[in-house]
């Protein structure tokens, strides 16, 4: 009965949507004084328009490298990255980034921090102000617009970072373990808020994480990477109904999927 109800609620997953981000055969090796460290090895995947895709992997699997590549901060040594059909050669204005740390400017107010991308891109900040306040309302920080970052908790600072990532209305949002530094309670609230923001804005999201429940809770699709050098091990579709809630986490399918992913991690950790 309950399952049938879920079946009815299942949303139309945007499988037919066109490809937004295309990563094809991408490899990258860091050159250091102590030698060459391969970070990514012939990685390929697509993110469809409007999809929420998570990259799940152990520490040091090149997850953050992947995000820097997708954002254009780094160039791949082999393979290609395309965004809406165009090769990514430098940071692009239709991409928003949320970092692992809030990386806010301590000398600017919350509102000014949210406006940083607008000013950096030389756009009209007075028009952006309305939108910034709207986004601060979305992350429930509007009363703190005039405060400085050091007056906010870590979770609040991270929410400012999320609002900043969305201010220029990017089509693609890149998120690098944005909740890693938060405590468990704040993290669950933030997962909920992110799902709400994503559902109400319809953006494509590439979400880097090392948390299995986080990936299952949020994603349409989960890509599992191997330890360094990062290779694509599994690609798992998650068709749990939206919006997902605390109850979803107790859903047998949620539990089964999380446990399957955990087993994949255990298998990875064992020496081959």
């Amino acid at each position, binding site marked *: 009965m309950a399952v049938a109800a879920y079946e009815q609620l299942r949303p139309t997953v945007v499988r037919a949507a066109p490809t937004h981000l295309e990563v094809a055969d991408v490899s990258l090796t860091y050159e250091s004084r102590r030698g060459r460290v391969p970070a990514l090895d012939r990685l390929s995947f697509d993110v469809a328009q409007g999809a929420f895709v998570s990259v799940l992997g152990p520490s040091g699997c090149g997850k953050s490298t992947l995000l820097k590549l997708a954002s254009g*901060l780094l160039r791949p040594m082999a393979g290609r990255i395309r965004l809406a059909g165009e090769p990514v050669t430098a940071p692009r204005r239709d991409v928003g980034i949320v*970092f692992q740390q809030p990386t806010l400017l301590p000398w600017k107010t919350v509102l000014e921090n949210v406006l940083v991308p607008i000013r950096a891109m030389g756009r009209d900040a007075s028009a952006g102000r309305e939108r910034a306040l709207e986004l601060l309302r979305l992350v429930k920080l509007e009363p703190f617009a005039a405060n400085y970052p050091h007056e906010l908790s870590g979770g609040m600072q991270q929410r400012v970072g999320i609002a900043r990532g969305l201010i220029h209305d990017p089509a693609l949002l890149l998120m690098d373990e944005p909740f890693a530094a938060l405590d468990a309670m704040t993290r669950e609230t933030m997962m909920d808020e992110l799902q709400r923001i994503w559902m109400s804005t319809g953006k494509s999201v590439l979400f880097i994480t090392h948390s299995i429940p986080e990936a299952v809770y949020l994603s349409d699709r989960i890509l599992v990477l191997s330890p360094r050098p990062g290779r694509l091990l599994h690609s798992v579709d998650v068709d749990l109904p939206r919006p997902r809630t605390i109850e979803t986490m107790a859903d047998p399918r949620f539990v089964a999927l999380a446990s399957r992913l955990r087993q994949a991690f255990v298998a990875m950790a064992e020496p081959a």
Partner: protein
Amino acid sequence: MMEPRHALDVVKAVVPPLATGVVIVAVWAWATRPGGLDAFVLPSPMAVLRALYQGWIGGTLLPHALATGKAALGGLVIGALAGLASGALIVLIRPLEYLMMPLVTALQSVPKIALAPLIISYFGFGLESKVFTVALLCFFPLFVAAATGMRAVDPRLLDMYRAFSASPLHILLHARLPAAAPYVFGALQIAVVLALIGCVVSEFVASTEGLGFIIKSGSGELDIAGMFAAILSLSAMGVAAGLLVKEAQRRIVFWS
């Protein structure tokens, strides 16, 4: 609850140095009592106080203090701005560092005070020589602080700005410059002292006004009390300028 604690802090900050000052003046007064040290060696506190009073209220010291203050401030502003701009330039344009650094290092190892007579032979006895000497002295600490501070910015902030397509100039103004502010204020504290030193040395070498001129001519006329009055005026100016810089730092670099 804050009130008594704050009051205690004030007492702690004021009373011990005041006690030290009282002891020093007492020993000084005792050493210069009638029949003690000769007034040509060390004038009494009262004689110095009289010289200070005549100098400031009577108006003999005031124009000289203004002359020294004007030259020191002018040179400080020019030297500091030049240092800041040069520091920013080598951070913004990397190749400039390789072109400029050897020269700057060589210049820095020259005792700039030794250049004062040379500068006077170029610019004459007036304001220009003093300003140039002071600017030369103040340039280096600001240059080093600006370059160091602008490089010390959190690399994650730089990545963030680059990811949002910011130009290098935008990053310099909005991320590097504020990040360098604590370094710059530290250097300004040093530069304030250097400015007074440079100014006085320049006045020693050749000048017609300024507290350095007063000290030098006092030495010729054996006006020891007048020399003391000028020296005390100089240190008061230095302390006041240092406090101003500190207060400006507290207000401007409020986040650190």
